[in-house]
């Protein structure tokens, strides 16, 4: 019985490893791109807010509305709706790389909002003191807002990463592969509960590790 299980696992292990890599690849690359887009958006949301260093309510409202629209799309619909855009961007609409486009688009507004809420926590007095010292907008963003909010941003990125792993399970729809896809193909379609359970265990471990690492980093940078 145990022997059977072992043999079975060994036989699917190349697929498991491949799927794990795919999930990792999709997640990491999407989170990086989502951050590259989302962090500046979050910063703009904060500094253009009422009473902040670059108050501009028109920009603030429009940007906020756009972000909300993207955030309210169910991922599976976004995945399909973005097909033309994906083709334009990466030349194909199927495969792991193609899945990164909708994952990034889904995660970026998420990142923007969590960066926004972290930056809003930064003590107004500290910003004021920086202004009084003659700091420019750039200096306040780089030397005050982002460093002061770093622990919050790290925790937010951790949550985003875990959410992206969840979304990536749907990447199978566009042939993106990954652990979620594997579980669906073997577990759901072929009633192979061993593969199903194994992928779930791997996902649980990955999520735990990411969360612990995120907590560790956030603590390291939290000087309060």
């Amino acid at each position, binding site marked *: 019985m145990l022997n059977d299980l072992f043999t079975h696992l060994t036989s699917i292990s190349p697929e498991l490893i491949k799927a794990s890599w795919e999930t990792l690849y999709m997640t990491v690359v999407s989170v990086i791109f989502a951050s590259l887009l989302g962090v500046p958006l979050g910063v703009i949301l904060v500094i253009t807010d009422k009473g902040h260093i670059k108050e501009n309510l028109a920009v603030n409202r429009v940007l906020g509305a756009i972000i909300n629209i993207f955030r309210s799309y169910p991922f599976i619909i976004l995945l399909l709706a973005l097909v033309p855009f994906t083709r334009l961007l990466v030349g194909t609409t199927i495969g792991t790389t193609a899945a990164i486009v909708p994952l990034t688009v889904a995660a970026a507004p998420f990142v923007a909002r969590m960066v926004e809420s972290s930056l809003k926590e930064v003590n107004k007095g*500290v910003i004021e*003191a*920086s*202004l009084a*010292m*003659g*700091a420019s907008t750039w200096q306040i963003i780089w*030397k005050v807002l982002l460093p*002061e909010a770093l622990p919050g941003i790290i925790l937010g990125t951790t949550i985003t990463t875990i959410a992206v792993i969840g979304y990536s399970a749907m990447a199978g729809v566009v042939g993106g592969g990954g652990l979620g896809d594997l579980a669906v193909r073997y577990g759901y379609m072929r009633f192979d509960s061993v593969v199903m359970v194994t992928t779930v265990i791997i996902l649980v471990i990955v999520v735990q590790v990411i969360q612990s690492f995120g907590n560790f980093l956030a603590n390291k940078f939290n*000087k309060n």
Partner: protein
Amino acid sequence: MLVIQIKDLTKIYRSGAGEVKALDHVSLRVRKGEIYGIIGYSGAGKSTLIRCVNMLEKPTSGSIKVNGQEMTSLNEGQLRVARRKIGMIFQHFNLLSSRTVFDNVAFPLEISGVPKAEIKDKVTRLLGLVGLADKAGAYPSQLSGGQKQRVGIARALANDPIVLLCDEATSALDPATTDSILALLKDINRKLDLTILMITHEMKVISEICDSVAVLEQGKIIEEGLVIDVFTQPKHPTTRRFVQTIIQTDIPDHIKKPLLQRGQGQIIRVSFIGDSAAEPVISTLVKKFDIDINILYGNIDQIQDTPFGMLMIECMGSRSNCHRAVDYLRQLGLRIEVLKDAE
């Protein structure tokens, strides 16, 4: 030389609910090297006033000159440069929590583009000046309130400011720590000949380190002058209330009334300021004018290095001798108030 010159400064806050005139044609002048205090009750407009000096608040009208430069007409870039030379410390310190003490003090230098090596020297020197050389590597959360304010002071001094603005710098501190921070400010004022403009709601702060004081009420300066003058001769009722929070300038009514009723001769109040307080005036009076003196009430105080006090005395003798005695006291430069004429 004037370091700060404010003329007809008015600030009106407009919001949905209406208008608040936080400052109403405020004018004041702060001379180089002096510590100038502004006192007022909550809502008087103190913070608004001090924040206008470095344009954290944009005045509605009026002129603000710092070191001769008109602040209200600077563009953004010019304002940033001007602000480097205006240090500021805050009630809640406003340190960067993610930076060490050293890096907090280095912050304004980084902003001004000072080279790394120079920053190290400067910060080390400043931390020595405020007595925190051993805390360079600590984070603000590991410091006491007094230590945090010392970091704030070191940070404010980093770019060799021409003036230091203090917004309720000791209001979050306990009395002993307040004293030590005030002593540090006075020390810096003397050592660096640094002009300081501070706002407070505590008369104690004014009396301990300020040279001049202005009293702000409902956005207007209602009284202004040298601390010693304002303390000994407060004119406006609000000023008198402030002065009475720390020294007794008036004789309490429950003491004054029975004394006035009982007394036979001329009852006067003599106020002493400075050296004259030490002069043996009473015995001189007795010898010179052939009268008897009865001391009814008295107290003596000290503002910074100047002693001052008040005596309530009764002169007993002929009416003309009593009047001559009073004239003599006036000639000595003492402030006399006749509470009851001789009978």
